[in-house]
């Protein structure tokens, strides 16, 4: 398998700010790779380092085996879908899509045909004569996608591409992007702060915080076996248990994560672990109820239980149980 993008201890500092701090990663060709993190975590700077808008302060970047440092954006076989789409307001939709081919000197007829085909691919055939201002947010997003893909990049970079869309459109676009990526076989590198988006679309996820990668793995790994408290908290909403609490349950004294859906109501039998506490909150979420109990020393534990199970009275003592292997010890120092 070919490595599409390689970061070797890459740092990008802005004065005293370490936006990206010693990042190592290898993105495989044809992969749908997500960079997930809160704002200011360095994920967008990493994307800009790949696009060539930023140069690393330190470290080494390769794109398909070629050194990328010092190579300007216009000489990289990489295209970007910008967060604000950045469509050219003075050009028609068709000219926007054909722009990349125009500056490369492709003949007019040929490039307009290719642009037309790209618009059809993103389900906007016949929109070519309009101006960006006449399209909705979702449509502009598709145009931005077509404008990048028409150049047949080897890596497509997407900067929060769905951030400005409403929920329904976002879900639809998630699916379309995934389908498109599979059919084209192009490497997609995708920046998002939405963990649901990353989990549902990506083949692998790098979770960023403070300019560093906290964890890199498949969505399942990141979700089920978070390595740090930050990941446990940011990806989903895991219960993070303190070392003392974890030790009392019979594990080594380390921080641990426990997914709310791993807990069930009532005492467990055979190998299951129990925690008891007072029920302090119940949230009805439709298909399930989210129960929060307060165990010893104020440790709060949330459990997701099916709505069909009767909810105990508020303030009453409640026992929750979980399978011993569902508690995941993390690497964080205590």
């Amino acid at each position, binding site marked *: 398998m070919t490595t599409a993008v390689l970061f070797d201890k890459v740092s990008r500092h802005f004065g005293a700010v370490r936006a990206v701090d010693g990042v190592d990663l290898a993105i495989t060709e044809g992969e749908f790779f997500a960079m997930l993190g809160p704002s200011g975590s360095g994920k967008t700077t990493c994307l800009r380092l790949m*696009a*060539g*808008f930023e140069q690393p302060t330190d470290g080494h970047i390769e794109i398909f085996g070629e050194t990328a440092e010092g190579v*300007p*954006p*216009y000489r990289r076989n*990489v*295209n*970007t879908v*910008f*967060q*604000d789409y*950045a*469509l*050219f*307001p*003075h*050009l028609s939709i068709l000219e926007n899509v054909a*722009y*990349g081919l*125009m*500056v*490369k000197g492709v003949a007019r007829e040929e490039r307009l045909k290719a642009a037309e085909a790209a618009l059809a691919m993103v389900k906007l055939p016949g929109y070519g004569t309009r*101006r*960006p*201002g*006449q399209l909705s947010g979702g449509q502009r997003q598709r145009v931005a996608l077509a*404008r*990048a893909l028409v*150049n047949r990049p080897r890596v497509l970079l997407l900067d929060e591409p769905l951030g400005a869309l409403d929920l329904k459109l976002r879900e639809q676009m998630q699916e379309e992007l995934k389908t498109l990526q599979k059919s084209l076989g192009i490497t997609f590198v995708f920046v998002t702060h939405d963990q649901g988006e990353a989990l549902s679309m990506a083949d692998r996820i790098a979770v960023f915080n403070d300019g560093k990668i906290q964890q890199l793995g498949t969505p399942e790994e990141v979700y089920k076996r978070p390595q740090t408290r930050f990941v446990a908290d940011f990806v989903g909403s895991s219960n993070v248990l303190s070392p003392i609490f974890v030790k009392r349950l019979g594990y080594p004294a380390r921080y641990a994560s426990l997914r709310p859906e791993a807990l069930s109501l009532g005492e467990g039998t055979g190998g299951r672990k129990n925690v008891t506490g007072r029920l302090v909150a119940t949230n009805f979420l439709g298909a399930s109820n989210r129960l929060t109990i307060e165990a010893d020393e104020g440790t709060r534990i949330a459990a997701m239980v099916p709505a069909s199970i009767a909810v105990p009275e508020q303030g009453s003592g409640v026992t929750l149980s979980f399978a011993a292997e569902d508690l995941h010890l993390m690497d964080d120092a205590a």
Partner: protein
Amino acid sequence: MRSDRSTSAPLGLKIAAGAGLLFLHLPILLIFLYAFTTEEKSYQFPPPGYTLQWLSVAWNRPDVWQALGLSVRVASIATAIALVLGTLCAAAVSQTRFFGRETISLLVILPIALPGIITGIALRSAFSVAEIPFSFWTIILGHATFCVVVVYNNAVARFRRVSGSLIEASMDLGADGFQTFRHVILPNIGTALLAGGMLAFALSFDEVIVTTFTAGQQQTLPIWMLEELVRPRQRPVTNVVAMFVVLVTLLPILAAYYLTREGDQVAGGGK
């Protein structure tokens, strides 16, 4: 939201507004009127008779043509210099952040805020100190100081609306710096430059104060007119020329006004 109150103003206010406008524009109409009078030595009202002869007299006066030619050349070159320097400066100030950015922005605008007489004296003493003889080029330099400001102001406002990501998008799609300038930046700031250029031209064309201090023996059109007023020979010729100047400066300003207004819609369309 518009208020529901009557959109019609009280009568007194209407009269006051009308009087104000008349005060502003009636003198200009008088200039037009006296371009056609038969009396050539004084401005008596009403004119004793009307004639078109001054048009042909003005047409046949070589000093008119000389002054006009000089003014057009000065204004064109000063505008050209202003377009290049003003655009570059606006690009630097609006697209990048560097130490002293705000200061440079202020220093560029300052010459138009300073009274022309200060600019004039300053340039005159500077030229003498440097022992540069007054010439066609010293006039142009003088005019360029305020023409740059007009272009800069127009361009900087438009540059701020061309988001940085447009330039990055262009680079990302394979365009180098020159292609990005030609295909993305220029179309987006073009109307602003045209408007700024026209304003600069009009400013330079009727400039008197700075010109007085920086010209040698040359007479630009406004200077020529000033001299003509002193000599009461063929007075209406001055009026004919004045009428011509009004038309020449008014049309570009109107055009600039309409161009930038349209530009708002074009540049706003992308967001």
